[in-house]
């Protein structure tokens, strides 16, 4: 269990944020560049000086400015996967993984490092230099290196952003698998809502150094509380299996999309692409289904309308449309989405 409450000056603004992460939970710290996400992560690891901080991990106080406690980075049971991996270029891949074990004077550092390297499927690269690895492979080595020290908390700083688009999908899938096998708390920093949704159980949204919203992924997605959060994460994210132009969703429904490809996918539908009708719509939309209005949230001139039913979805319409269609809770409506508006990403 991680509890972190941190305050420090950050350029023109102050970072003042607190969050908790339970064992086995993946928490994503999501926000735009410059929001203070990475600084928060570095403060948890003890890599930056803070004005005020209270960091407790599994009941052990790592930092408390009130009592003057400050455990140095090297003695915090925290593994970090850095944005650019930061594998030591002068050491072999195996020595990179064994580095933390050597720091602990473990006599079996080499053997244990090798076991970790094989767990991420890179035993054959033990003697290679990190420069010989692809971006995805380097990411796996970085993860093995961080996990080899048996940390109680794993921090991941934009773990996929340095990878190209095709590698990212593959590494993200693998990361999910390895993260699932780790039983400590995990804190992921990212600016990519898709990455956050794919890897995290809970989102903490950081904006201008402050936490503006937090909660389970689907809750934050469904009911973003600020304009910013709505833009950042307020998309409809659906998991399914693509087969050509059709995505079979986990709930049993089907979505028609353009070039969906094949295999496990995320189908992303922006709320503004969801049209609401009182009667079955005529014309070209390929995806049409009935539903019931669950909630209507006005955000200035726009409204987010949550619609339940066989395929729950969130629509964003103008405030005048809400009046014209008389949208209120429990209203029966038809929903339509054009095939071209269904974004499909490999999961």
């Amino acid at each position, binding site marked *: 269990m991680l509890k972190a409450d941190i305050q420090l000056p950050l350029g023109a603004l102050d970072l003042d944020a607190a969050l908790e992460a339970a064992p086995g939970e993946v928490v994503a710290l999501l926000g735009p560049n410059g929001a203070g996400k990475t600084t928060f992560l570095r403060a948890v*690891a003890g*890599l930056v000086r803070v004005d005020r901080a209270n960091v407790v991990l599994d009941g052990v106080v790592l930092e408390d400015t009130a009592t003057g406690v400050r455990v*140095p*980075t*090297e*003695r*915090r049971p*925290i*593994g*970090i996967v*850095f944005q*650019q991996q*930061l594998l*030591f*270029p*002068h*050491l072999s891949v195996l020595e990179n993984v064994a*580095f*933390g074990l050597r*720091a*602990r004077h473990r006599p079996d550092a080499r053997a244990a490092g090798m076991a970790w390297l094989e767990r991420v499927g890179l035993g054959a690269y033990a003697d290679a230099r990190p420069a010989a690895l692809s971006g995805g492979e380097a990411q796996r080595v970085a993860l093995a*290196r*961080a996990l080899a*020290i048996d940390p109680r908390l794993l921090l991941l700083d934009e773990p996929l952003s340095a990878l190209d688009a095709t590698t990212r999908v593959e590494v993200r899938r693998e990361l999910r698998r390895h993260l699932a096998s780790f039983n400590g708390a995990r804190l992921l920093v990212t600016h990519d809502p898709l990455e956050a949704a794919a890897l995290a159980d809970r989102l903490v949204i950081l904006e201008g150094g402050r936490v503006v919203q937090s909660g389970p992924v689907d809750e934050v997605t469904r009911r973003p509380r600020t304009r910013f959060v709505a833009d950042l994460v307020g998309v409809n994210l659906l998991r399914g299996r693509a087969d050509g132009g059709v995505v079979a969703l986990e709930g049993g429904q089907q979505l028609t999309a353009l070039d969906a490809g094949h295999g496990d996918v995320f189908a992303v539908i922006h709320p503004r692409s969801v049209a609401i009708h009182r009667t079955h719509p005529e014309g070209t939309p390929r995806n049409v289904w009935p539903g019931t209005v669950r909630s209507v949230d006005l955000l200035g001139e726009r409204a987010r309308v949550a619609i339940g039913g066989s395929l729950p979805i969130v629509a964003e319409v103008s405030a005048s449309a809400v009046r014209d269609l008389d949208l209120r809770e429990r209203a029966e409506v038809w929903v339509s989405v054009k095939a071209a508006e269904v974004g499909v990403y490999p999961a």
Partner: protein
Amino acid sequence: MTSEPIPRPFAVLAAFAAALFLLPLLGLLVRFPWTEAVGALTSPEILTAAGLSLVTSISATALSIVLGVPLAMVYARARFRGLRVVRALTTLPMVLPPVVGGVALLVAFGRRGIVGQFLDSAFGIRIPFTTAAAVLAATFVAMPFLVLTVEAGLRSMDRRYEEAARSLGAGRWMVFRRVTLPLVAPSLYAGAVLCWARALGEFGATITFAGNVPGSTQTLPLAVYLALETRPEAAIALSLVLLLLSLVVLVALRDRYLPTS
């Protein structure tokens, strides 16, 4: 590769400049005493001076590494009042006339120097006119080359590697030994070679502070100077040998000082 047109006055002056360097080198080759060279270079006094030069220059380089790397670390990373002044003063020997350095060393570590008289009365240690003095003189003029090179290396290294090492549980010493030092190794190597070359060529501070005692302070440059009056052919032969050595140093550091394109 096509050449850009160079204005004629520039070309002429450039040719004079190049000649200024090339003619003396040519002179050494033309006047090289081919027949007597082996005898002149293997005479006992020259061999003694060469051995002494090797010992003092390597000792000075070792001393510069042991003291200079920590100094470079302080310059690259510490922040305190007066740091810039101290840094400027320790860089001074690079531009100071070496003989001034010798005089300064003498008033500090000489028998009646501010530190020297204490060393003498308390421990019976007298530095001037010993091999230790020759090493100290060479270190004085040569260490700044190492310090500045290593400092530049430390400043340009990616410090996030050190953070990664700390996050893996490495203490300060392990971070330095297994991450920082290997990452600045190219700078340390270049700095050490530069430092050694400067120490090997040291003349002014050595003759002032350490004197010209055959076998204990008479290094190769001093022997060359002395031989010029009595046996010029030996001086010429030695000069060419030292020149070739310098060439080797330049080639060894080609990545740093010679453009490769």
